[in-house]
């Protein structure tokens, strides 16, 4: 049985939903204006002074990373936007610097990484590309 209270709440939700849909509706006057451009007059037949196409195929070759806790998460999260060479090219850094870097990926570049995951990845980075207290390298990567 639906109580009176639940019914009221339900009606409330429906009204709220309608308001949200109304606010978020696609109002043509609110759409970003597409810059008006004159129609393109040049047909595609004009003779070109050079070849009409240029196409390249980029080679890829991600480096491998050593096994260890956090490796899979690191590989899954840190290859979304760029190659792992962004990490291998760095010198060894303290954990503090790696924490800043990972925070930058999340805060500045909007990487989808939770705080918990970030901690695990930072620990992994501090192990494979880290520095000891005295600054000496403990990297197994070049």
């Amino acid at each position, binding site marked *: 049985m639906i109580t009176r209270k639940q019914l009221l709440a339900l009606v409330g939700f429906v009204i709220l939903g309608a308001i949200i849909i109304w606010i978020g509706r696609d109002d043509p006057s609110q759409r970003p204006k597409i810059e008006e451009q*004159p129609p393109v007059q040049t047909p595609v037949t004009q003779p*070109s002074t050079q*070849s009409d196409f240029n196409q390249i195929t*980029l080679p890829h070759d991600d480096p*491998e990373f050593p096994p260890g806790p956090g490796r899979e998460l690191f590989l899954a999260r840190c290859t979304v*936007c760029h190659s792992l060479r962004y990490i291998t090219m760095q010198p060894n*850094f303290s954990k503090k610097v790696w924490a800043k870097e990972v925070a930058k990926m999340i805060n500045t570049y909007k990487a989808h990484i939770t705080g918990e995951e970030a901690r695990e990845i930072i*620990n992994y980075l501090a192990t494979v590309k880290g520095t000891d207290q005295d600054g000496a390298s403990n990297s*197994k990567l*070049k």
Partner: protein
Amino acid sequence: MILKPEELQDPKPEGDAVSRRRFLQLASAAAMSGAFSACHSQYTNTSFISVPPGQTVARFPEKAELLLLTDRPPQLETPIHYFREDLTPNEAFFVRWHYEGIPTYIDLRTFRLKVGGHVDKPLTLTLDELKHQFDATSIVAVNQCSGNSRSLFLPRVPGGQWKNGAMGNARWTGVRLKDLLQRAGVKSGAVDVSFGGLDEAPLFNMSKFVKALGIEHALSDEVLVAYSMNDKPLPMLNGFPLRLVVPGWYATYWVKSLASIKVLPEKFHGFWMDKAYLIPKNADAVETPENLATDTVPINKMNVRSLIVSPDLPDLVRAGATAEIQGIAFDSGSGISKVEVSIDGGKNWQAATLDSDALGKYSFRRFRLPWTPQSSGAYQLASRAYTNDGKFQRVFDQWNKSGYMRNVIEQREVTVI
């Protein structure tokens, strides 16, 4: 949600975590079993060759073998022996993109350059129209990454770990930006002009790579929209088919695969102008790790630099024989007035002779000094350049957190046999 770096560092409760020692055992086992292709690899992909120690060279389309920083997106460095030529060959010119979504296919039948925004008549131009409806202009100019030589800063900073090869000198030919803007008719009250290329951000909520110049700068004679580099079409990785050329300014403004120019009636705001490529607002753009600058400005004109390019490996310098010390110098366009060379780590300096300045004030200027070392041993070679507007290179504690604008006197050891 903003995550604080400090909060991310708390070590997790150990639990089942592998200890560091165990980890290193695992790691070295893996290294021995050849799993570490990062250090000494036998790549199946022939585009990548690891040359010891730790430096990978790569061959990308339309490119010679260059030093590999990253592959996706590509960042490739020019080996410095190429700077023995005044104009850096297109195939050896360094490559630097920010986002993996770079153009790899361009059909000139559909490619258009748009000039719009705060103008009377927006333009939409094909490459042919650009070439045939506007006067062509050429300029020789150095294109240098803001972070060139970043790997030499101490303490080391994150970012592209360039040595000295994130630069090149080329003859750029194209149309004056000014001519395009005048054809479009800049409306009064214009403040900035923004430039966007065909590269795309990897996620929808990341800012497109867009840069801006002030309207006065954009209307100056020297800024070009170039369709040719050393009299050839630009390589795809250097911005085919069009690239903005901003002589004297760092390469971050030289937008590649330029497709959109927009005149703005207000100051441009965007991540790549407001948050990235900022330098401390002081004469040498310096700060310290303990005391980071709070007052910053967008990076802009290049400072004066010089680099000895010869002798270098594999040149042999013999005691009693005459060798030539040779290098290049440049600044943001005031021009090089003098270069001095030291062979004893900066204790004594001698004036080098400068090659003609026929390539213009934005070009590399070559310097030479004959050198006859009397005895074998190690020599510390260094060079320092002076400019027509009174600037010169020094040795000082030059550091900033982004690793920009390095221009201290560089020293290099040469062994005489």
